[in-house]
């Protein structure tokens, strides 16, 4: 892109944000909460693999690779190490294996959705779903603030590390206060300034905002819908069978 021209880019991520929301829900229900039990096992496998595929489409190769690596290690542990240990170690190992197995796909789906959805896409999706501003605006602010909170936290931790030696031991009980209070203070201050800046630019002035962000369903969304529909039908058939 040249220095001084800009045309609204039509490049969109593969999926409509509404489809992404649906996927998060499906991951939560099917993979995390394992609804449907053994009956839906193969569907669960499909949906557990889906985030990896989506990360590839979003060019997040590194995340995808690390995810696959973690999964590989887990399967290695499950099939080669687990059968040979017992007692408490086996219990701990099993918990680790199962938790990572369940959380990893949902987590990676979250990473994909957060990374590939802009705040305005999210807003557009919520508007289309008739979710009121009272819910969407706070959630937009949350998306905006999570990375900030992480930055603040990292800086505070670094500062404590530098001065840390003198904290430990003597005032261990104060650690919480020293960590949590500055994090809240810094975030609240940033939030206040964000609020001032947003209001001077008219947030909430008109009842109906414009949104220059266009969202719409494409072929990929239809594939996902069909997949979800198939899962649903198969599940219902299973329940009544």
């Amino acid at each position: 892109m040249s220095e001084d021209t800009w045309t609204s880019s039509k490049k969109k991520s593969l999926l409509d944000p509404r489809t992404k929301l649906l996927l998060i829900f499906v991951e939560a229900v099917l993979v995390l909460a394992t609804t449907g039990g053994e009956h839906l096992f193969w569907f669960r496998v499909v949906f557990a693999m889906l985030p990896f595929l989506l990360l590839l489409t979003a060019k997040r190769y590194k995340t995808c690779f690390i995810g696959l690596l973690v999964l590989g290690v887990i399967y290695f542990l499950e099939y080669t190490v687990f059968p040979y240990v017992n007692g408490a170690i086996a219990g701990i190992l099993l918990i680790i294996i199962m938790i990572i197995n369940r959380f990893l796909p949902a987590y990676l789906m979250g990473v994909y959705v957060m990374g590939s959805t802009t705040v305005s896409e999210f807003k557009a999706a919520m508007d289309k779903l008739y979710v009121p501003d009272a819910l969407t605006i706070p959630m937009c602010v949350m998306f905006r603030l999570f990375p900030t909170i992480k930055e603040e936290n990292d800086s505070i931790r670094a500062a404590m590390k530098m001065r840390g030696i003198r904290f430990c031991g003597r005032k261990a009980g104060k650690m919480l206060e020293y960590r949590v209070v500055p994090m809240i203070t810094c975030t609240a201050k940033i939030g206040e300034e964000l609020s001032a800046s947003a209001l001077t630019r008219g947030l909430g002035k008109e009842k109906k905002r414009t949104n220059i962000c266009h969202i719409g369903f494409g072929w990929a969304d239809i594939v996902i819908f069909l997949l979800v529909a198939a899962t649903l039908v198969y599940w219902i058939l299973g329940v009544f069978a």
Partner: protein
Amino acid sequence: MIKFENVSFAYDATPEEKSLRNFSLTIEGGECVLITGPSGCGKSTLLRLLNGLIPEFYGGKTEGSIKIDGNEIRESSVVDQAGKIGTVFQNPRSQFFNVDTTSELAFGPENLALPEDEILRRIAKTVKNFSIGTLMDRSIFELSGGEKQKIACASVDVLAPEIILLDEPSANLDFEAAENLRELILHWKNAGKTILIAEHRINYIWDLADRVVILENGVLAREIKRDRIARFTEEDATRFGLRCLARTAPTSLVKVENEASGQTQMDDTIILKNFHYSYDKKQELYSIPEMKIRKGKVTAIVGANGAGKTTFLESVCGIRKNSGIMVSDGVSYTYKKRIGMIFMVMQDVNHQLFTESVLDEVLISQPEEDENGAKAILAEVGLKDFSERHPMSLSGGQKQRIALACAIASNLPFLLLDEPTSGLDHVQMYAVAEILNRLKNEGRTIITVTHDSEFIEHCCDDVIRMEEA
């Protein structure tokens, strides 16, 4: 036309102390007015009265009348002013509502429910005028402070307000970024906007102003008209407690003792070796095979971009994992060993203030708590009267001095500072420079990253340029 008539204002927090007293000023449409004066003189208050943040965000008691084009504005809220008055704030990190730049530019016009093609046209126009094509469709978290401030200006520009307020917009910017900001302000000036800039750092816009207003304790101390601005001297500036007027690039001040002459002995220097940092493995942010720092001196590091310098300091300090080695007195220290040897004053001091009082902050920094010692240190940095105050309730310059007091208390031989003078006025900057000079005389080695030429001239012995890789 903006007209202040006998305006007085006191914040609710300090009702007995008036921020503005009987202030009157008329600003014609299309004028560019620079408002300056020492910290706490009331210049931010002035802007907040205009954009409505007073009383909505900052409660207080207002007297007198403020009119824009003949209409009293005390009745209108912040949101009412949107589209008429645009404001650029100080902190580039906090004034974004969105995570990506394009949405941020669209944000204001969207709020005003402008039609979509109008919004797109405005964005395209702003992008062209500000030459920010390369910044579009990016995450704000990957932009530098200067780039963020450009986007902040652009997101005001798309609203096409007639009046533009800038509240210390350069406080967190380095020399180059401030020069860029100057270009944007010049663009607005040429477009006939009414511009009010509240600033400490006046040099980058001094010759753009049509009028300069100097405030002192909420009172108009001096008004300098267009034809007099050029005749205002550095001595006059010092007399009013203002920062310098000359625009000197910090990189032009580079001076290092000639190493080849062999005058510097090994035990007089510390050597920093093998400091590299790359972002995402693609592009090296900086690469320093070797850097010599004289002990017991203040060394300024200039050049390169802000993020690179901050990362470098964090690496030297040891709070960031790195492969750099520091050699002092023939002993090599890896980053792990450097932790606890070096005190660092961060750019955002807020991150390193933890306790509920200034005195406690110093006490926890001492190897052994010693209240009398701590009080002596506070007196040394001029904070004796603030020892019971909450650190976060103090001004930027005072917080900077708390951090320095902690550095003194820590008794550590090495001190790193990251832009210690950003947002400081003349007096506060001098206070910091004085403290550094004193610490140097006590034999401490100080490295400071800075873009502040005036500060460099006052207390830095060596100036090293850090090249961008």
